[in-house]
């Protein structure tokens, strides 16, 4: 059985929660909600609709747990990335870089982070981002702009290529 948008939902949950376990809870919650309300879905873009639900679930969870939000980027990720590569040295370098980029994204304010993730990782159009985040397109554009500026400058400051 295929859940075609599960990966997108999982990714957004991870980026919003910045914690794997919390992201999994949010994912479960969102998928159950989506199933419950699926009959009432009348739009044309089920992916944007599902991610809107994920986002709601994540925001409620963040609101509930405010103050005990966990630290981004765990050490396990690095190990995962290295394994299976032929050139361990290059892989280590790459994974360090990837971790730093990830940390930079994770450090972005949540509204910039979600906009950037939807655009760059899910390749959402502005219209779909506007739908998923329930934000006007103009705001989507300026958030994307700020997110990318912050990221590019932080990366330059860290000496990333």
């Amino acid at each position, binding site marked *: *059985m*295929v*859940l*075609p*948008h*599960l*990966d*997108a939902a*999982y*990714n957004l949950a*991870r980026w919003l929660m910045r914690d794997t376990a919390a992201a*999994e809870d949010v*994912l*479960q919650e969102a*998928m*159950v909600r*989506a*199933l*419950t309300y*699926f*009959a009432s879905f009348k739009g*044309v*873009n*089920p*992916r944007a609709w599902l991610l809107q639900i994920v986002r709601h679930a994540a925001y409620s969870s963040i609101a509930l747990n405010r103050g005990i939000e966990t630290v981004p980027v765990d050490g396990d990720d690095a190990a995962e*990335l290295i394994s299976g590569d032929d050139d361990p040295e290059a892989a280590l370098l790459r994974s360090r*870089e*990837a971790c730093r*980029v*990830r940390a930079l*994204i994770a450090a972005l304010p949540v509204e910039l982070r979600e906009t*950037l993730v939807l*655009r*760059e*990782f*899910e*390749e*959402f*159009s*502005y219209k779909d981002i506007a739908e998923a985040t329930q934000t006007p397109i103009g705001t989507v*554009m*300026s958030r*994307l*702009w700020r997110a*990318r*500026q912050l*990221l*590019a*400058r932080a*990366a*330059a400051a860290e000496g*990333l290529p």
Partner: protein
Amino acid sequence: MPDCDKVLLVQAELDGELDAAQAASLEAHRAGCPICRQAQAELVRARALLRAEPYETTPDEVRAQVMARLRLAEPRLEPARRQRSSRRWLFPAAGGFGFGAACAAVLAFLLVLPPRDDVAEQIVAGHIRALQPGHLEDVVSTDQHTVKPWFDGKLDFAPPVRDFAADGFPLKGGRLDYLGGRAVAALVYQRDKHVIDLFVWPEGGPLPRLAGGTQIQGYNVVHWTAGGMNFWAVSDVERPQLDDFATLWRKAP
């Protein structure tokens, strides 16, 4: 926000949100605007960083947990469904209908696919647009070694370019196109009197894939992937010929 109100357009271009006319007018502006060129450089840099990030798929055990939760949650649907079905006087035998509808909703949800024909329709629309006079090729050449370098710097990937003149599909040129919010390469081929457009862009990302081919508004569309690229061929040639064209590509070294 920097001092030029066009920077968001620079960004929109990078995101594939501008049409050809807007892109052309931006191009003219950017030539004389250092702020926009600086912005462009930063945007490209940010994108390169992000695109190097691996896309994480859902771990199998998480997927399994979700499936298990969904199976548990299924019965929750029934009461809501019954209420609705009881209002449906058209279905007097509503007992069965409620359950059937619940099952259908679950199935539809589990099987709901990205609108598969979406891309195919965009491909056909792109093809028809390109057939308007003067829109077909940005670079006119039957030489793959001219067409391929032409794409350098215009796309964030290097599309494979091949000429199959010996097999009856001569290359005529190439152009940039926009599909699903991204810039893609379009290669133009001739088959007798017919034009074949071949759209190419890297695999990955959420663009839905269509296995095999389809027909829309009389145009045949064939899709395949190879070497990490999506290929979509569209033309009004007969389907077998388009399939031959696809086979040539797939067998190409």
